[in-house]
């Protein structure tokens, strides 16, 4: 038992010297550092975009709720023809629909702007 243990300890390979190794390691770490910074910047931008979208959603939600409360929907008359009822319905819900479309447009604009910055 001692023989093999002694043999192993006496014949341990020599430690290689630094040579080019640390220079290459430094170069790789610099590359990793660059990637880390890019990814961190991307995450920061996405967090900001999320915040902007959240604020825009809250403001528009409040506006739409206000509009709905200001212009309450009239109940439909049962004897009116179908097309007239639909047009009347659409007119009554117009502020809500416009608010919804504006909210979608703002969210889309925020997302596209963030994507465009990333592409640059």
């Amino acid at each position, binding site marked *: 038992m001692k023989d*093999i243990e002694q043999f*192993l300890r006496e*014949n*341990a390979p*020599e430690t290689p010297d630094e040579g080019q190794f*640390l220079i290459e390691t430094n170069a790789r770490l610099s590359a990793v550092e660059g990637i880390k910074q890019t990814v961190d910047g991307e995450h920061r931008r996405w967090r900001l975009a999320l915040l902007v979208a959240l604020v825009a959603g809250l403001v528009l939600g409040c506006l739409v709720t206000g509009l709905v409360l200001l212009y309450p929907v009239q109940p439909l008359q049962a004897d009116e023809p179908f097309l007239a009822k639909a047009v009347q319905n659409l007119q009554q819900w117009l502020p809500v629909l416009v608010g919804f479309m504006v909210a979608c447009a703002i969210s889309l604009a925020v997302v596209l702007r963030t994507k465009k910055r990333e592409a640059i």
Partner: protein
Amino acid sequence: MTRERFISEVRACQGQLRRFLASLCGDAALADDIAQEALVRAYVSSGRFIGNFKAWLFRIAYNCFIDNLRRVPAPSASMDSPEVLHITDSASSDASFRHEELRRALGLIPEKERTAIVLHYFEDLPVKDIASIMQAPAGTVKYYLSVGRDHLKQHIRL
């Protein structure tokens, strides 16, 4: 951990790390590639590091070695292979040959036994640290050491 501190810690143990990997792979160039990969992985997760840097780095390097082994399976050598017979037939007292003989013999034993042997006898690490690196119980590491010694004895003429 700052980059400067990371580099200074790496500078202190890079030689041992590369020797450990070279003993596991049997190929210095491949060992250096794995060491570089391990250092990048270590640097990326250095923010979460707590404790013994060397043991932590060796564990990452060992995991990289295992990943590499899975990607590129090593050619298996049986005990009756011509390579083994060649070793035992031409053993001499020449130091460089003994080193080569040991390298080949290490390549013939299972990877876990080789790892335990290399860490214990070449890097002089205690069983507790080896257990942490190999993520195995201390008793299992002692078993690997015992069986590994027996297997090495079959390939090396003392």
